[in-house]
């Protein structure tokens, strides 16, 4: 398998400019600036079918084109490195091991969307990432890849500011991130208008996940078809999948988008520990509803996950063996969303603690069958939430009930 975004991870001092250049780094940027118009770049990225790795899988080329076509200036590019979805650590590895690849992708995105300012926003807890990205940005400025007159093109400037968060999952939501950049509380904003027209400071903004941007240089060098063909079936490109939970090897592997959960968990994760059996798994972080071993052959890509009533999410695959209680799993997810709800809208602010209470009731043997129906009703009411957090928060709990109902009933009927 050809690697795209992790191909430099094993190189000595892979995070330095010297190492990145030795591996062909910034050649894509030079090619773009010498040979391509911004239109040609967005056409290329559109043709590659690159979609947002932050979880929403929106077409990246289209996003950059929307920004370019908005007449308001200055336009912005923003790197979303707020990665905080439980079970997910793919962006952290990219930031620690190959920050320049994301920076190069960001500069290409700026050129394609005719942006002249940018922010690199990293969650507050990623200390090593802060150091590596700040150092890489300094190197990029010194080498003339950032700043005024990039690579000798006096019509292309990009000033990027490094920013860090301070502990808030919700700030990963793009409009909340803009509020955070503006020095405000990180509550989400109403959409529309969308970030491409009304982003940070109300200006057109291309905001992308680290992994999305990191894929751009390789697409420039190898072409749209090459990237598209790396995926399985209709899915294009690769994805970093990362494993955790009851798995022998909690590792991150870059694989074709659309690989089966079986391959990720069994081959790369080494399956569950000796003497245990697989009970289930989550395909992509806390927000994704769990699946069963019968669904191991499903393709880990957005469409087939949606068909199964869950989401592809972030690629954070969490594995459960027979020693794990699925009611407890649902409870842990509920606790996470209760803590991370920003409290701005009622369905989520009230709904997330309700999810916790119902799970607690069931775990303490005080639940009734009505509670399982109540979860369904609560989920429906939470769909009226203001942002994606509230829309997703109930899915893992309800998903656990629908796939592992016998475990919930065992508590309710006092068999546990």
């Amino acid at each position, binding site marked *: 398998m050809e690697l795209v975004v992790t191909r430099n991870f094993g190189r000595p001092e892979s995070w330095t400019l010297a190492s990145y250049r030795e591996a062909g780094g910034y050649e894509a940027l030079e090619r773009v600036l010498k040979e391509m118009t911004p239109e040609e770049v967005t056409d290329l990225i559109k043709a590659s079918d690159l979609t947002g790795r932050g979880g929403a899988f929106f077409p990246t080329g289209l996003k950059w084109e929307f920004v370019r076509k908005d007449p308001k200036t200055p336009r912005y590019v923003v790197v979303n490195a707020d990665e905080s979805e*439980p079970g997910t650590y793919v962006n952290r590895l990219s930031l620690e091991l190959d920050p320049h690849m994301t920076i190069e992708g960001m500069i290409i995105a700026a050129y394609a969307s005719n942006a002249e300012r940018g922010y690199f926003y990293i969650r507050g807890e990623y200390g090593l990432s802060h150091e590596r990205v700040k150092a890489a940005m300094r190197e990029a400025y010194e080498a003339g890849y950032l700043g005024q007159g990039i690579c000798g093109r006096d019509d292309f400037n990009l000033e990027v500011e490094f920013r860090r968060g301070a502990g808030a999952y919700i700030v990963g939501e793009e409009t909340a991130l803009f509020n955070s950049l503006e020095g405000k509380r990180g509550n989400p904003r109403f959409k529309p208008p969308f970030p491409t027209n009304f982003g940070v400071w109300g200006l057109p903004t291309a905001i992308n996940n680290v992994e999305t941007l990191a894929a751009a240089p390789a697409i420039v060098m190898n072409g749209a078809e090459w990237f598209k063909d790396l995926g399985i079936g209709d899915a294009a490109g690769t994805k970093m999948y990362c494993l955790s*939970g009851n798995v022998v090897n909690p590792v991150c592997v870059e694989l074709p988008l659309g690989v089966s959960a079986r391959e990720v968990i069994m081959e790369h994760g080494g399956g569950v520990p000796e003497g245990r059996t697989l009970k289930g798994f989550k395909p992509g972080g806390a927000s994704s509803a769990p699946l069963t071993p019968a669904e191991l052959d499903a393709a880990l890509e957005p469409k087939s996950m949606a068909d199964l009533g869950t989401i592809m999410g972030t690629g954070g695959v969490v594995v459960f063996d027979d020693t794990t209680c699925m009611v407890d799993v649902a409870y842990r997810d509920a606790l996470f969303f209760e803590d991370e709800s920003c409290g701005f809208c009622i369905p989520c602010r009230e709904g997330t603690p309700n999810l916790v209470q119902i799970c607690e009731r069931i775990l303490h043997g005080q639940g009734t069958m009505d509670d399982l129906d109540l979860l369904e009703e609560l989920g429906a009411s939470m769909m009226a939430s203001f942002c994606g957090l509230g829309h997703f928060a109930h899915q893992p709990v309800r998903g656990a009930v629908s796939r592992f109902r016998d475990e919930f009933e065992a508590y309710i009927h006092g068999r546990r």
Partner: protein
Amino acid sequence: MAIHHTELETPPGREPLPESERPKLETLRERLQPLKELPGSSIEALYAAQELFSYVPPEAMTLIAEELKIPESQVFGVVTFYTMFSLEPQAPNVLRVCRDLSCHLAGAPKLIGALEDALGVRHGHTSPDGQFTLKVVSCLGLCDMQPALLVNLDQHGPVMPDDVPDLLDGIRNGAG
């Protein structure tokens, strides 16, 4: 950000800054000067305050509001929004232990218990020797190191209950 979670600390007192700490406000004022050129940098301003005082005292919030020309209510809103800011004094070593799913499955509850025993405090509090503040937090993005924790911003994991004495000794001896 949780509103009424049982694991949350009691609402912090808004004690005025002790007289001995007041000179640091001048240092803070100096450190805020470059941030005036960077609109929206209230988070960095608060980090600067927390670095000096170990927490964000009310006087620092007033100063930040004045210097950055933003309402004090906005500064307070930001401090209370982000979990990494504290309104109460903290120890020089803040331990943040992940309690989310992957770490939970890998033994985070036992790890938290071992840390509470070794430090002699419940999480959310500072150890009697004043060296450690223990916090239980959401996923740190260190799930490959499950169960994981941060010592200030240094990443550790997997940390098993048996590793706790050595970990704490290491930090006490400055190797943290």
